[in-house]
């Protein structure tokens, strides 16, 4: 079957009434998750993962993916109207989004961000459709050495992007790896770190840890930063009657920005560890450098809003490629998505699209439909999201605690897991407070068992020689790419952050 007929088959799966309903619920929930400041897609996914357990896997994965990319759409609404990014990938959207709103152009800014997100997301899905089968084809030649190196690449790129706190990122990852070793060793059957507890034989459960770190930990940190004290008094009002729609100039002047942002965002998204935040900052900086109006960035330039918006949505699509074709998550959010796959007994990897065509292509097709739905929701449901922004955080906070607790318990009806979630929440708060990386911990927790198994198999094959990593051509390629990324990414990150910081100061 060729790509087109695969995609058509995917559409036939995605447009079943129940799957469409799940998709719409996911898109809507994703937007709500994005709108709530201090609450990213990883937290939303982790908390809502248990809710999907009673559902058909295809519909559930479609819904979770829609939450993931829907959060990118929602996060910008607060960036524009409140100067508070709903999540980290929409930080760059505040630089010109809020000045546009303050200049009386909130309506056009909101519509343009929705359009840019749609273009970025859709270009990203088109590229997934074309490239995912190719990636799967290439990765079929991969063996244990390559899988180990890919896991290392994912962790290393994530850690180098942390910047000056990289040592704390390494420690966070090591804690995640350590937690991943708890339970029965599958090769020898010996228990590790179980201390006689039957509950720990199966290992440290991913869901309570992820919900605790991302849900409760982020919530506690938001309270520490005083998010519950800052009301929504600073919200910029917008006119829905006149001056709501963008002008022809807005569309024409940003058309190439959308193309550049989409391609750059997608490429960055494919790199494990880089993610949507880096993509949006890099797109903003690139646009600022090449635009004729670069000097005006930070004062309400439409291209300054469109560039990061296309990039972060394209990046979230790009991140699905290593997930689907290699089974390697590149970010905390895709790590939660991978956990969802594993919980349903599905193992993403080179053969995934061949052995589960309905699910894989149904998911890709659903992303086309999801982006269309999100475009409509983003424009026409703005008043609803403005009302959500107005719900005080001091009421929202305790409600999130309830959803985290009941959601965790609902998975295995285990009080041990419930207590583990609360413990992870407190630890997650201190990790955020002191500069550690909960994302690195969760990624390592997911990748750890995979990396250990691959390393042990590799060294068994090579009879203990590490030369196997340079003897095999695919391994050598992965090492080359990893070294390039480790050297290049900090420079690009610095370039993006520096330009973004000067734009922020220009905008006041």
């Amino acid at each position: 079957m060729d790509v087109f007929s695969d995609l058509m088959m995917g559409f036939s799966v995605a447009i079943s009434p129940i799957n469409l309903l799940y998709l719409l619920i996911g898109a809507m929930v994703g937007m709500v998750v994005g709108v709530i400041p201090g609450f990213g897609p990883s937290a939303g996914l982790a908390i809502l993962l248990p809710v999907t357990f009673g559902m058909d896997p295809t519909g559930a994965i479609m819904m979770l993916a829609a939450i993931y990319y829907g959060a990118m759409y929602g996060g910008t609404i607060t960036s524009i109207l409140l100067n508070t990014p709903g999540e980290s990938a929409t930080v760059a959207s505040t630089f010109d989004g809020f000045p546009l709103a303050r200049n009386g152009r909130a309506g056009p800014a909101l519509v343009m961000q929705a359009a840019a997100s749609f273009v970025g997301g859709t270009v990203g899905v088109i590229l997934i459709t074309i490239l995912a089968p190719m990636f799967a084809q290439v990765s079929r030649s991969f063996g244990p050495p390559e899988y180990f190196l890919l896991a290392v690449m994912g962790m290393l790129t994530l850690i180098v992007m942390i910047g000056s706190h990289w040592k704390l990122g390494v420690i966070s990852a090591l804690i995640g790896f350590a937690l991943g070793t708890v339970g029965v060793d599958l090769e020898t059957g010996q228990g590790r770190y179980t201390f006689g507890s039957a509950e720990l034989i199966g290992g440290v459960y991913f869901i309570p840890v992820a919900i605790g770190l991302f849900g409760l930990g982020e919530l506690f940190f938001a309270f520490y930063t005083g998010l519950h004290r800052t009301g929504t008094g600073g919200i910029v009002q917008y006119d829905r009657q006149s001056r709501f729609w963008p002008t022809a100039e807005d569309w024409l002047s940003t058309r190439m920005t959308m193309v550049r942002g989409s391609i750059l965002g997608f490429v960055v998204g494919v790199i494990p560890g880089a993610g949507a935040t880096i993509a949006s900052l890099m797109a903003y900086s690139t646009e600022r450098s090449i635009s004729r109006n670069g000097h005006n960035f930070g004062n309400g330039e439409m291209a300054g809003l469109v560039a990061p918006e296309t990039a972060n949505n394209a990046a979230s699509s790009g991140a699905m490629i290593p997930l689907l074709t290699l089974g390697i998550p590149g970010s905390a959010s895709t790590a939660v998505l991978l956990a969802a796959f594993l919980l349903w007994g599905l193992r993403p990897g080179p053969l995934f699209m061949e052995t589960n065509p309905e699910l894989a292509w149904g998911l890709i097709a659903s992303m086309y439909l999801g982006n269309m739905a999100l475009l409509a929701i983003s424009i026409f449901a703005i008043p609803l999201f403005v009302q959500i922004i107005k719900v005080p955080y001091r009421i929202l906070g305790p409600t999130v605690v309830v959803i985290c607790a009941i959601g965790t318990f609902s998975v295995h009806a285990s009080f041990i897991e419930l207590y583990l979630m609360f413990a992870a929440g407190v630890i997650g708060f201190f990790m955020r407070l002191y500069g550690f990386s909960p994302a690195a911990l969760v990624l390592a927790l997911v990748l750890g068992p995979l990396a250990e198994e691959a390393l042990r198999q590799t060294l068994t094959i090579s009879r203990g020689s590490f030369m196997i990593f340079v003897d095999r051509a695919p391994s050598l390629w992965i090492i080359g790419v990893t070294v390039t990324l480790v050297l290049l990414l900090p420079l690009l990150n610095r370039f993006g952050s520096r330009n973004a910081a000067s734009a922020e100061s220009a905008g006041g």
Partner: protein
Amino acid sequence: MRIAFFLVVLTGAIFYSYVAFADLGFLSRTGRLGPGFFPRIIGVAAIVMTLWALVDELRARRGPGGAFEQWRDVAVLIAFALGYAVLLRLFGGFVATFLFLLLTLSVLNPGRRLTNGLVAVIVPGVVYLLFDQLLNANMPPALIDLPI
């Protein structure tokens, strides 16, 4: 607090490594890499990295971070959240959620009794309908049944 957190991580790393070296073999009986191989690498790396970061922290000599107000609010929320974990075990999902929300909101959102009361009733109701009725999932059962 910051140094204390580092010390807790370091203690954990030392304990983890001790178990890896004392209880878990580097090689299995068949001569392959054993269950202790990976944990030993992780444990040693964790000790080295934590010591390195700790030395950096001691050199940086930061002052105590965060105002009293910041710590008070987050401490209240953490304390109530941990209390909620206990209440869930004792009174089950619905009653514990009602009590937790009523108490927490009365502290964090004072003076708005009607709003707080409505949230404390509506949220457990919606959660019950969603998890117990719609999704057929488990709500925490009560250890002590209340006559309601």
